[in-house]
């Protein structure tokens, strides 16, 4: 199984110097999409084209990007802002990192076109706290873009002004949630705001704001350069455009792969990523980052698209595909992930703050062989009491590993309780305390 697709976002990322402006101008889009947008299109036309392209947000929810921009209150007398969400903290996700590191000008060009579309003059790239070296690259290349006149004032002599700034967070998963990101940008704790008002109405500094993922913004220059019809023709209907997949776990060649969303999960794992390591068998797949429910091997022969994965009962999320082989103890895995969620819960709302920790404690007890049968239903009940009842979607994210592993692997939980130990053949397993992200 191999996937033949000429990458559009990551075509040159393995070539030396791909991050430089000279390279970008010689080989890639070279700010011609920005030129086209500001010199030949009205902002409203840019939004129409993005809508027509069918581009959906790559940050997790798959919300149509053109629509998001349309909601931005353009008549407001206040300044508007673009926030590029480069917090990329969902376990298993490492695509935005690649784009920013190897193709930063595509990100910058996307930011500038987005600004033009919504009437903003400033874009902030909010970058994850740990991405020190990526921040340096971005800042260096933003500098180059200013020198070349692609940023700054009077771009292409049209009177369009645009500044792009990089803001490094302090390292928090929750800072990737759009309103928490905005709070953090304002210098406060990365805790979400209650919605409504949505950022499109009242976002950064209470001004109309669009928050877009790095990969989303990288698709925008493609739409403008090649036209919405060309773009919409890539991949299945309503799931258009090139997509980056981060395949990791027990595969032979983990990495970022670019494909249209017609590619199947199976092709990504067994084709792109070279199949399971050591000839092991696949046990389960997390299709869209740690906060998406697991799928079983017989569920993965489906397109890795927003709609197809949703239909299978999970989510494309951040397209972080984690393949787990038969040596994986699902109780251990759930515990490991809950160690992450309990640590990353921002603590603002009650169910998540108190519940995530409780879930972790229950999982740790079961995993240690000290659990009770009732703990399994308690896990489900506590999850139910978190799900849909929190201030932000983090709560739903945190319970996904618990609920879906119990649904599919309840036997493993019961075995831990009954036998007081793990019964999964342990070829490879993380031991000791779970590794904290920060």
């Amino acid at each position: 199984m191999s996937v033949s697709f000429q990458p559009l976002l990551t075509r040159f990322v393995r070539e030396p110097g791909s991050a430089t402006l000279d390279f970008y101008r010689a080989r890639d889009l070279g700010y011609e999409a920005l030129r086209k947008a500001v010199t030949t299109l009205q902002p409203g036309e840019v939004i129409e084209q993005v809508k027509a392209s069918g581009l959906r947000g790559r940050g997790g929810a798959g919300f149509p990007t053109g629509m998001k921009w349309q909601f931005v209150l353009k008549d407001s007398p206040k300044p508007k802002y673009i926030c590029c969400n480069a917090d990329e903290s969902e376990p298993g996700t490492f695509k935005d990192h690649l784009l920013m590191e190897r193709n930063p000008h595509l990100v910058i060009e996307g930011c500038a076109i987005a600004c033009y579309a919504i009437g903003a003059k400033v874009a902030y790239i909010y970058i994850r706290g740990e991405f020190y070296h990526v921040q340096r690259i971005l800042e260096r290349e933003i500098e180059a873009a200013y020198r070349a006149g692609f940023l700054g004032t009077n771009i292409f002599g049209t009177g369009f002004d645009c500044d792009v700034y990089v803001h490094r967070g302090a390292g928090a998963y929750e800072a990737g949630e759009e309103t928490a990101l905005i709070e953090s940008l304002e210098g406060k704790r990365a805790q979400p705001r209650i919605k409504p008002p949505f950022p499109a109405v009242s976002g950064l500094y209470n001004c109309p704001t669009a928050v877009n993922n790095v990969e989303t913004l990288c698709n925008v220059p493609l739409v403008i350069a090649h036209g919405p019809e060309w773009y919409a023709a890539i991949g299945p209907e309503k799931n258009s455009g090139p997509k980056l997949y981060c395949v990791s776990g027990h595969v032979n060649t983990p990495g970022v792969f670019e494909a249209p969303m017609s590619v199947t999960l199976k092709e990504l794992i067994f084709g792109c990523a070279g199949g399971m390591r050591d000839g092991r068998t696949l046990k389960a797949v997390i299709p869209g980052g740690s906060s998406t429910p697991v799928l079983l091997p017989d569920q993965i022969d489906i397109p890795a698209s927003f709609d197809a994965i949703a239909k299978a009962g999970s989510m494309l999320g951040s397209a972080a595909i984690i393949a787990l082989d038969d040596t994986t103890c699902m109780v251990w895995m759930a515990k490991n992930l809950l160690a992450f969620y309990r640590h990353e819960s921002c603590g603002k709302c009650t169910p998540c703050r108190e519940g995530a920790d409780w879930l972790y404690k229950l999982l740790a007890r079961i995993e240690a062989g000290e659990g009770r049968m009732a703990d399994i239903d308690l896990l489900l009940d506590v999850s139910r009491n978190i799900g849909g009842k929190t201030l932000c979607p983090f709560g739903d994210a945190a319970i996904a590993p618990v609920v879906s592993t119990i649904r599919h692997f309840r036997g493993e939980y019961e075995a831990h309780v009954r036998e007081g130990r793990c019964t999964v053949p342990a070829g490879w397993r993380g031991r000791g305390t779970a590794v904290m992200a920060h």
Partner: protein
Amino acid sequence: MEAVSLTIDGVPVTVEKGRTVLQAAIEAGVRVPYYCYHPGLDIDGSCRVCIVKIEKMPKLQTSCSTVCSEGMVVSTTDPEVADARAAVFEFLLINHPLDCPVCDKGGECPLQDFSYSFGPDESRMDFPRRVFDGEGVMADVDFGPTLMLNRNRCILCTRCIRFMREIDGDAQISVADRGNGSEIATFDEEGVHSLLSGNLMDVCPVGAITTRDYRFKSRPWDNPAVADTVCTMCSKGCHTSVWLKGKPEWARGSKLVRITPRLAPEINGYWMCDIGRFGYHWVEGERRLVRPIVRGADGAQAAAGWHDALRTVGMLLGAAREGGSGALRFVVSAHAATEEMFVLKGLMEALGEAAAATVHWQRSEKDQPAAVKFTIPVTDAPNVNGARDLGYAVGAGNDGVPDLSALQQAVNAGSVKAVYVVDPGPAGSIGDLSWLAAARTAGRPAVLIVQAVESSPLTDAADVVLPGSAWLEKDGLFTNDQGRVQGASRALAPPGDARDDWSILVDVAHALGVTLGYAQAGDVRKAIAEALPGGPYADVDQVTFARPVKASHWLRTSNPSERWKWDFMFQDLPPVKGHSVQTEQGYVDGRVLPLRPVG
């Protein structure tokens, strides 16, 4: 008002447009619990207990953050709501110490009350609780000069944080760490340093923030009576409630246990400052004057009865008046109620010395953040405007600087034979009169009469001391810095033989041969209303003064937005044995003593 109609639990409700579902429920008397919501603070939407079901919305919604819209159908009792709400209570309590028996909030704790009403019967949490600074009250840590903090009890509603950010204007409190480890903190553990700190105890829905002043002092059920009154520690005139402890007769200590703010949207909102909140101890303090004092022929002061004291005052002042016009001068504290100032004015006019009084008070700049939303005036007295309205010279007025220099010059020049000081405020609140005490000691003036509530160097120098009443011991009118005429109500009886100040002045007038004809305070207010028609005083004779009422009643009526939630409290409390709180029946409006003619 643009109105919106909706139904809550099947009951039609109409509210002002823009109100939230929670506010509509509160207005309609529907019980919806809440913690992070506070009517005086911004919406946070974080505690999640206020969830309700709204038709056509896929998920349960937090009612505090959902604005009412026309035709909305809300349920607070749907099984889905009840279930989810109970779950939030379970979450709130899994780490809560449940040390209610030793917690100061016990008995007036929304976490207790709502958990009983809406929470699950038992918790399924069987792991050790999260502990921050120690177990039990060992966890109480310093939280600045006025407060203590117990992080184990905190439910992270962030009301305290928002109070400091939004009202105090200096965001001294924040959350440190995150997730399950989140804790309320101040920079470098410095605690809260603010003149508004006491409000943090009020906003905290649990016993996490307590005031050092009230800590371990009482229980709400030991405070069977509360009187609504007005603070007189500055010219703002905040509406307050005074809590009185009912205690066995044999117990010592004070009755007055705390003062809390009472909602007055145009004056103090939900808040009050620490000066008024904590500055009440003098009322039942050691320095209170409880009997008249007369300096005898031997030069020593000795306690006396009212008859003797008043007779002495009559003789001394009568003699001084022979020194001619200007020989008798008065100094009046701006802590005096309007009634007292009015009676004094009548006396001076009858004596033909209409301008013989100087009004004086204390001023102090308050150190408050630039962004503060609750400013404390510089004028540390409640009634400068009342004095102004009665025609006393108060210089530049409420915000001005009082001036005693003319009086001081006259005293130094020897033209003043007697000075009469009316000072019903705490010692020193009238301003610096040490020069007068020294002048009297030096023999000029020859006579010093001090009508006061606390002993001070001034009373030490006086020939006669007449014990008056503190503001909590009498009904009185005070005109605040906005010009509002407000009635401060009596909550306590004055100590010993101390009396209402206006009646003392009537008796002093009588001793000087002037009959003013007021038998009770109501007569004085009637005369004020007649003397100042058409303005804010026109109906001061109609002002009703509150009497101490049962605390349960107060809890229901004082704060309209919280009213409904107290309905179930204090219903089945044991009676406090032999409690001695004076309620309505006990108070006879400050009578004038029948006085034998001077002679």
